[in-house]
């Protein structure tokens, strides 16, 4: 029986997820041994016709990373949906919208205006902006249509499993691939990662006091961050308690508070709202004046709590009138 075919595709992404696959290092040899990578834009050439030429379900699994931002990406993922048995949303962008998802705070017009007109480095006297169709020399040159709203993968096609993380951790990737090969997969729609919060595996957890209450939220530049003590206990906004474990707390080991790229645990619907609730509850103040003073210490709440998950949150984008 020939090796199952595997495909990778990227939408509005940064290529970090591709790097994660490369991070398998020699591990990639086992993968290649087990599967046949037939479709990987960063590594193999292909054209759309090649994909359309595949039979439906020809690929056993297709790992799609990156959020859906324009029409071309939508069309491609829809094709891949048809062509693959399993679709796995690979990385925060496809899982929750990721960093590009923050664009949902704006719309096409303000982005074009910023990118093509007002940004200091632009030289665009005519103020031309990209068009879907531009006729030139008798023919038309096309570009995919740029949407106002960034969408997660499962808002465009039906997604079977999710591999969280901004760039998913290597061990989770290996775990996922072996699980797919061995067919030992959880129920459809599951997130292929442990279902506990980061605190469980964080090696600073002993130093977190039982009656932790924050008198003042601090910014990393305000204090010399202690290497052993729990970051939240030091007053930093570490979202580890609301973020899924599995990344072996590489950020916290690097002395940087967790920003929630692995997304929420299964019982939580909106990561931003839940993290916000937890952080607000530990503020040590009861009367209005103190509450405002301490809570005011959290700057840019939307950016902090929904850094990777804005498109997947309930409000998913800024309300436009």
């Amino acid at each position, binding site marked *: 029986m020939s090796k199952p075919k595997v495909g990778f595709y990227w939408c509005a992404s*940064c290529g970090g997820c591709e790097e994660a696959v490369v991070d398998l290092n020699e591990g990639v040899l086992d993968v290649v041994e087990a599967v046949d990578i037939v479709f990987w*834009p*960063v590594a193999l050439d292909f054209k*759309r016709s090649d994909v359309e030429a595949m039979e439906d379900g020809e690929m056993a699994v297709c790992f799609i990373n990156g959020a859906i931002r324009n029409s071309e990406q939508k069309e491609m993922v829809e094709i891949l949906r048809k062509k693959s048995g399993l679709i796995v949303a690979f990385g925060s962008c496809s899982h929750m919208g990721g960093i590009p998802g*923050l664009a949902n705070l704006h719309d096409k017009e303000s982005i074009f205006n910023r990118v093509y007109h007002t940004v200091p480095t632009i030289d665009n006297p005519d103020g031309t902006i990209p068009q879907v169709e531009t006729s*030139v020399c*008798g023919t038309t040159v096309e570009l995919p249509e740029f949407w106002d709203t960034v969408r997660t993968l499962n808002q465009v096609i039906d997604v079977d499993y999710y591999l969280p993380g901004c760039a998913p951790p290597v061990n989770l990737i290996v775990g996922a691939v072996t699980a797919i090969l061995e067919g030992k997969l959880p129920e459809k729609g599951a997130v292929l990662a442990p279902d506990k919060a980061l605190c469980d595996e964080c090696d600073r957890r002993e130093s977190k006091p039982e009656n932790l209450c924050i008198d003042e939220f601090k910014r990393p530049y305000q204090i010399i961050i202690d290497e052993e003590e729990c970051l939240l206990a030091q007053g930093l906004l570490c979202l580890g308690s609301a973020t899924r474990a599995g990344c072996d707390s590489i950020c916290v080991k690097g002395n940087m508070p967790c920003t929630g790229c692995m997304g929420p645990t299964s019982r939580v619907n909106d990561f931003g709202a839940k993290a916000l609730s937890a952080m607000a509850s530990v503020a040590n103040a009861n009367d209005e004046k103190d509450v405002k003073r301490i809570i005011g210490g959290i700057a840019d709440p939307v950016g902090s709590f929904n850094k990777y998950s804005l498109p997947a949150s309930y409000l998913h984008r800024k309300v436009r009138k």
Partner: protein
Amino acid sequence: MGKHIIVDPITRLEGHGKIDIILNDDGNVDRAYFQVPELRGFEQFAIGRRAEDLPQITSRICGV
């Protein structure tokens, strides 16, 4: 109007790109366009974020 060659997408590189080559009648290149369809709007949504988050945000412009 000559032939219109489209290389879409260009691969084995980071990011999305598209080449349109328009030939004139005698087969020479009349116009050639290299178009980058991928735009995420970092310049716009980076505004208003916390300074200490910027290293995480800007590194997501290109993961390679």
